[in-house]
């Protein structure tokens, strides 16, 4: 996922951090330019292409009739899969999802699931027999850092783009999407927190924390990554940053 960088480059970025500066001139609490384009993929019920700086992620949503899980017979099913396509980075290799792809999918999944963004109970068809499954496939096209935020945004924007799904035998008036969880990731470099790290920053960061919040500012998911540590104060600051930046990104949804 991360790449080996020269110690010169590392020192440069860490030095900048010490001065509260970033390698691409952004403020510590500033996201890269973001764009969200929905509806590109007609073969999906919902889709969104997110560009976060040079990072590009395409998410597609497919709805299918499936058997429910035995432990939740009347509810629909949510499945999130992420592919770190070898086309997106020289460090990605073909093959089944590795731990990075799996973590990415599961973090996006939890943001949507735990926020109750989809009213999953409405997705039953025949209780115990047939329900709607929501397949969210995250296709990473260009990896320039912070795949989590780009993927989470692509997934939720794709879900909000569905409206009345174009799928045979759809059983509801509208697709039951009700919340807008937004994930914000912060990298820690030399004790500083930097919002939306680009790849150069990810390659030298100590650790990252992703905080997913919903409209009222409450938290629905957190994920720490990387081999460094956070203090309790770091996390409180991270929460404040996440809440503020999520409000900006949320405007791009729906």
């Amino acid at each position, binding site marked *: 996922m991360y790449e080996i960088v020269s110690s010169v480059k590392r020192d440069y970025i860490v030095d900048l951090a010490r001065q509260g500066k970033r390698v691409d001139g952004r403020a510590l609490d500033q996201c890269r330019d973001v764009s969200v384009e929905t509806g*590109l*993929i007609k073969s999906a019920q919902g889709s969104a292409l997110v560009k976060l700086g040079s990072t590009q992620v395409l998410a597609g949503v497919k709805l299918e009739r499936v058997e429910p899980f035995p432990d939740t017979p009347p509810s629909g099913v949510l499945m999130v*899969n992420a592919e770190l396509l*070898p*086309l*997106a980075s020289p460090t990605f290799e073909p093959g089944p999802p590795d731990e990075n792809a799996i973590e990415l999918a599961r973090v996006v999944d939890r943001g949507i699931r735990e926020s109750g963004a989809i009213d999953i109970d409405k997705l039953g068809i025949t209780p115990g027999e047939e329900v709607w499954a929501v*397949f969210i*496939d995250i296709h990473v096209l*260009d990896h320039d850092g912070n795949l989590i935020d780009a993927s989470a945004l692509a997934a939720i924007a794709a879900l909000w783009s569905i409206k009345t799904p174009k799928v045979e035998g759809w059983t509801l008036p509208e697709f039951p999407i009700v919340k807008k969880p937004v994930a914000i990731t912060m990298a820690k470099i030399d004790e500083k927190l930097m919002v939306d790290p680009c790849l150069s920053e990810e390659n030298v960061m100590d650790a990252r924390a992703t905080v997913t919040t919903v409209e009222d500012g409450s938290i629905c998911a957190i994920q720490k990554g990387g081999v460094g540590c956070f203090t309790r104060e770091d996390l409180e600051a991270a929460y404040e940053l996440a809440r503020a930046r999520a409000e900006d990104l949320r405007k791009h949804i729906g």
Partner: protein
Amino acid sequence: MEKPEKLIVDGKRLDGRAPDELRPLKIQAGVLKRADGSAYVELGKNKVLAAVYGPREMHPRHHQQPDTAVLRCRYNMAPFSVEERKRPGPDRRSVEISKVAREALEPVVFLELYPRSAIDIFIEILQADAGTRTTGITAASVALADAGVPMRDLVSAVAVGKVDDTIVLDLTKEEDQWGTTDMPIALMPRKKLITLLQMDGHFTHEEFKRALALAFNGCEQIYEAQKRALREKYSVKPEEE
């Protein structure tokens, strides 16, 4: 959609095209930051992305060839690119297409210039509507050029086929499904050398010859669009003149 009674009415196809007409074609070179070369192609409803990495170090090392680079190719369909969600990962169809696409592209690359290296081609089908392998080869060839890989020629590819007893260029999904014959072809356009050829369905000898001729015409049009896309990317900006 049910099978219509006729696929060609008054010499026009379901989407209004003449038998020898391509679908709308859009080619864009250099669309990705990380890849060494890339291209995005739309042909009708097909949306295809191709990226090239290399020449780069070959891993695993025991696959290195002492006198040549190795070309590798991976054709992959996004799960959401087709009507019914496709399970991620290679299936038998995509393994075969990856092989024939590689063999279609290899003749144009000067592999011998980069011993022990790998050149990797990745073809991603984002939305599929028949002709994805040929569209993928068309895109990959532009991505190779965009990557600056030394090449003898481009490769231009398109499918021809037989629908309602008419030989047609560039089949849609409906024509592929309900038609009789599908024949994807790739050409090195300058010397008119065929680097990919597959066919299934039914052709008499006469039909086969006409289909070949039609494919050559189609590839010619695609070739022009490929060159245009590369010129657009590399055209000297006015202020730099």
